[in-house]
Each structure stands twice: as C-alpha cells, then as structure tokens.
C-alpha cells in the first residue's frame, strides 16, 4: 500500500508517548479531508525492545507500523534517527511526514528537511487546506501572532506538531507491523547516546499540585516573589514560574511551567505578570480554572484564562491574598 502520511512515533523505553496518537489523529483528519484511505497512514517506530509498542500503535491508528530496530538506534541521537527517517521517507514517498514538536521531534525534523532538501514548518497547531494547498498554522513572536505558512510544492511536506494540535486517535485499527533494517551501523555514527538523567533535583513537584500560583517577568525581580508566595500560602498551593524567571535565577528550574519545564494540570492556576508565550501556555492550559493578572490587556494569557484582571499585580495579588484569608476564616 502506498503511504500518504508518515508519522514519527515516539516512545520511552518501549512505552508509546501520547504525542504519537495525536499525530495519528492529525493524520486521519488530513486524510479524511483529502479523501486518502486510512490504509495510507503509517507510523515509523525507531528503537529497541519496541515490539509491544509497535503492536499498540498498529491497533490504534496506523495501518502499518514500520519498525526499525537495532543497537545503533537504541537511544535517541539525531545522527542515527535522521538516517532512518530519511531512508523510510524516500522509500515510502509520503505526501506528508509529521513529527511531534517535542525535544527529539524538533531535533530530528530539521536534519530530515536538509537531508531531503525540503522545507519544514515547526511548532504547528493546525493543518488546513486553503486555495488548493496545505497551510500550516503556528505561533510566531513568542505567541504574539499566528502565522500561516505555505511550504510549496516539494514533497514530502514536513511539520512538527505541537501537543494538543489534534485529539489523540482513539478508534481501534488492525494495522500490520513491518520490520525494516535500521540501516545504521554504530560505526557510522558521530553521536553516541549516553543516558537520560534527572535534571537538578528539587523538592517541588508541581505536577501533583492542586493549586499553583505562578509569577512571570512582570514581577521584575527575585525579591518581588513574596507577593506570589503569600498568595500560594494562603491558598495552600505551590509557586510556579515562567521561563524568564528561572533563567534569571529568581527561582530554581523545578518551578518552571511550560514546554521546557513541567506540564501541570491543577484545579486552579493563577498566572501573575505572565504574558503567556506559547511555551508557557502549552504547560498549563490543561488546568481546571485559570486566573490571569497582567497589566497588558493584549497579553495572550487572557486568551486561555477563564477570568482575568488587567492591572497592577502588586495591587491585585495582595488584595486577593487578603480576600482568600478572609474567606477561609
């Protein structure tokens, strides 16, 4: 069967990563729109000890799971993986190859683009047909604008898709699993996977928090975090932060919420002085109830918040702390 959409599956030690099913969901959506057969949607799975993962993906969205296994691709390196993706893309000639906009998807996709000599759209949130062509939507200028990209007539079209761009494919399928030689020898490689390890150890685990009060660049300094801590304490919650805050050392890295920090889904998320760069939003938009406090009425954070206050956080936040304490008696 020919291939129209090829999805690069992701897994961790053989456990399929959720983004894989979202990519398959996107692939089915695109195929449906184009009248392509579901049988033309394939996934590429690279690694070792992945037989179970392959069967799972074949049962949930992929008509065929192409499995490239071997010692040279056991741990992720861009050097090894791009060779496999390029070889499979050449032999399958898909119209489109979808990658997750994940640390490794974003790492390997440009290598494949340069190898195949085709353009790539990164961090996309939607794919649509417009004027007879595929158009890829994404955020630019750190979320200030939505950019719509055309990639021209070269094939395959390459895109990395943001988490949440499409609902995970959930129907049952009866795909087949087809092993292919990885075609990469360890001696060919100029990169060697060493290990995956924990980052800086910290006592804070925001992923388990029911209430998070986060501060951003708008606070202006490490010494200003007291207002955030006070509110978090009054609510019995944890303190979170956006990337600039941890980059500037105002708080340790483990407090960082977002694509390069932790993804959180508390019942209550209060964002103070956070403009809402897409990298932050992807890490917190799954929260139950979102309150945003920012002086800029145009800040993208108000687009995802349930309730917002446009104003000076140094007035609003202490007033809120006081009101919370009163309410709790």
């Amino acid at each position: 069967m020919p291939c129209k959409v090829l999805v690069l599956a992701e897994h961790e030690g053989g456990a399929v990563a959720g983004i894989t099913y979202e990519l398959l969901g996107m692939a089915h959506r695109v195929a449906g729109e184009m009248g392509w057969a579901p049988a033309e949607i394939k996934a590429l799975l690279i690694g070792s000890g992945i037989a179970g993962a392959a069967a799972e993906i074949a049962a949930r969205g992929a008509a065929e799971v192409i499995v490239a296994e071997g010692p040279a691709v056991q741990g992720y390196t861009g050097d090894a993986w791009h060779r496999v993706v390029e070889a499979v893309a050449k032999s399958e000639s898909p119209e489109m190859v979808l990658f997750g906009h994940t640390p490794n998807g974003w790492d390997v996709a440009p290598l494949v683009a340069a190898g195949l000599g085709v353009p790539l759209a990164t961090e996309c949130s939607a794919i649509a047909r417009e004027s007879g062509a595929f158009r890829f939507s994404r955020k630019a200028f750190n979320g200030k604008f939505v950019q719509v990209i055309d990639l021209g007539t070269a094939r395959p079209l390459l895109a990395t898709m943001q988490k949440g761009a499409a609902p995970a494919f959930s129907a049952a399928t009866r795909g087949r699993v087809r092993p292919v030689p990885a075609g990469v020898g360890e001696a060919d490689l100029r990169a060697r996977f060493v290990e995956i390890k924990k980052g800086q150890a910290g006592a804070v685990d925001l992923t388990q928090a029911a209430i998070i009060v986060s501060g951003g660049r708008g606070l202006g300094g490490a010494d200003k975090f007291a207002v955030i801590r006070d509110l978090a304490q009054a609510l019995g919650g944890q303190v979170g932060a956006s990337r600039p805050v941890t980059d500037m050392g105002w708080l340790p890295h483990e407090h960082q919420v977002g694509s390069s920090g932790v993804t959180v889904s508390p019942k209550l998320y209060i964002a103070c002085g956070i403009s809402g760069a897409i990298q932050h939003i992807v890490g917190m938009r799954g929260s139950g109830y979102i309150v945003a406090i920012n002086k800029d009425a145009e800040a993208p954070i108000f687009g995802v918040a349930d309730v917002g206050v446009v104003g000076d956080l140094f007035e609003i936040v202490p007033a809120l702390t006081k009101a919370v304490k009163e309410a709790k008696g």
Partner: protein
Amino acid sequence: MKSLVLVKQVPSADSPFRLNSSGTWIEEGNLTFGLNDYDRYALEALLKLKDAGKVAEVVALTVGPERAATVLRTCLATGADRAIHVKDAALEGSDPLSLAKVIKAAIQGEGFSLIMAGLQADDDNYGQIGPLLARLLDRPSATAAMGLELRDGTTVRVEREMENNRLLVVDLTLPAVITVQTGINEPRYASLKGIMAAKKKEIRTVALKDLGLDAAEVGGRAARLRTVRLASPPKGKGAEILKGPADEIARELVKRIREKTGVI
C-alpha cells in the same frame, strides 16, 4: 580550536509590535532591535570555553541587513574575536534551508570545530538553522543544550533538555553543531574595555556573489517556506475581565474560584 556562534538580530520583546499593511509580517519601522536572547547564551558558552583555554577563537556570524551589524558589535564587545556579516538585499525573505546553505558557503574553509547557536530566534521561533546547517555540513548536532563539556579535542558531551526536568546526555564527535537553551549559563555583559577593544576587531562583510551563490537559489524569491499571513491570535474563549477597585476584584475572584474549583 576555532569556534563559531550564529547570531540573529531580533525585535526587542518590549517593542511595539504591529502588523504590516499586507498582513504578512510585522511593521519594522517602530521596532527596536537587539541580539536574540538565546544567542547570548550560545556566545557565553563559547566565551567560557575560551576563558578555560579550550577554544582559541570565537567568531560571530549573522545574516541580515545593515542594521544587523550592531549585534555583531555586541558580540565583539562581549568577547568574540572577529565577525562575519552576510549581507545581501536578495536574501530578504529567504527560508531557513536557504539561510543554512548561505551560512555553509560563508564558513567554507574556516575549519570551525564547534558551531553554536541559540535554540531558536525570538522572532520567527522556527528553531531550524542549527540542525539544518549540521546536516548540510554532514556533521552531528544536538539541540536545546543545558550542559556542555569538551571531553578532549575530539568529543563534546551535551546535556539536552527533555520534558519533565530530565536531560538526555549525548557525546558528539567534533566538528559538531550545538544549539543552546536559555539558562545554560549566565551571559556576561560587554565591559567598557570590551567596547573599546571591539572597535579594532574585524567585521568581514560578504555578499552572495562573494560566496558564489545565486539569488535565484537561496534568496527571498526562491523561498519555499512562505508566510501567507500573520494575524493577531484569536482570543480563544477569552477570559471574562473583571474591573473595579482591587479589593472588590479580589472578592469577585474568590467567589468564582470557590464556585468553579471548590479549593477555597
């Protein structure tokens, strides 16, 4: 060991961003520009290696219009040894793959062992140039470095940032291309002495014809990745905006939080 940092001039975050009249990019007239934040960390990583005596030379390269020379001067004042400015009107609107081809041509024969760049630029947020260049050079690469260590003259160990506070450790055989995440180090600022010294440092300007490249292949007109339009983001469901004195707003917030979440 010679090293290269790829840098970009981008609009400052606090600039007044407005769409241009055709709705395809932003209006540049009112913007202030500066060195891309991610690139400061890439430059610092190389300056640290130079301080440690492991890198002999740090060269900064940018592709951009005349105004982009200021970011090269920033790099020189901060400690880079010399700079290369690829400047050609035909390059405006080039796509990332074309820019990577231009950069490859501009550094041919330089023999850089370590090439670094920021993970992404703060304007387009593409995050492609580093790995594109690596592939064109047929050298290994790693993105989103949060740690970097030259093991010996032939290998660099990179700690790449993964999700959920984890790091993927990978060894690359030099020459290699590495892009860095912000927060990997604490970028230094240019000293007065550095600013004075920078005036004597070289900025070599090169045009497409100097590189033997044809605008029909790498210029704006050859771009295949094309911005169809740029627009303000949809407001989504949009937040209900509360107005009034701070204590009144606070009471309203408490009421809503109590109703919607039950955590108070």
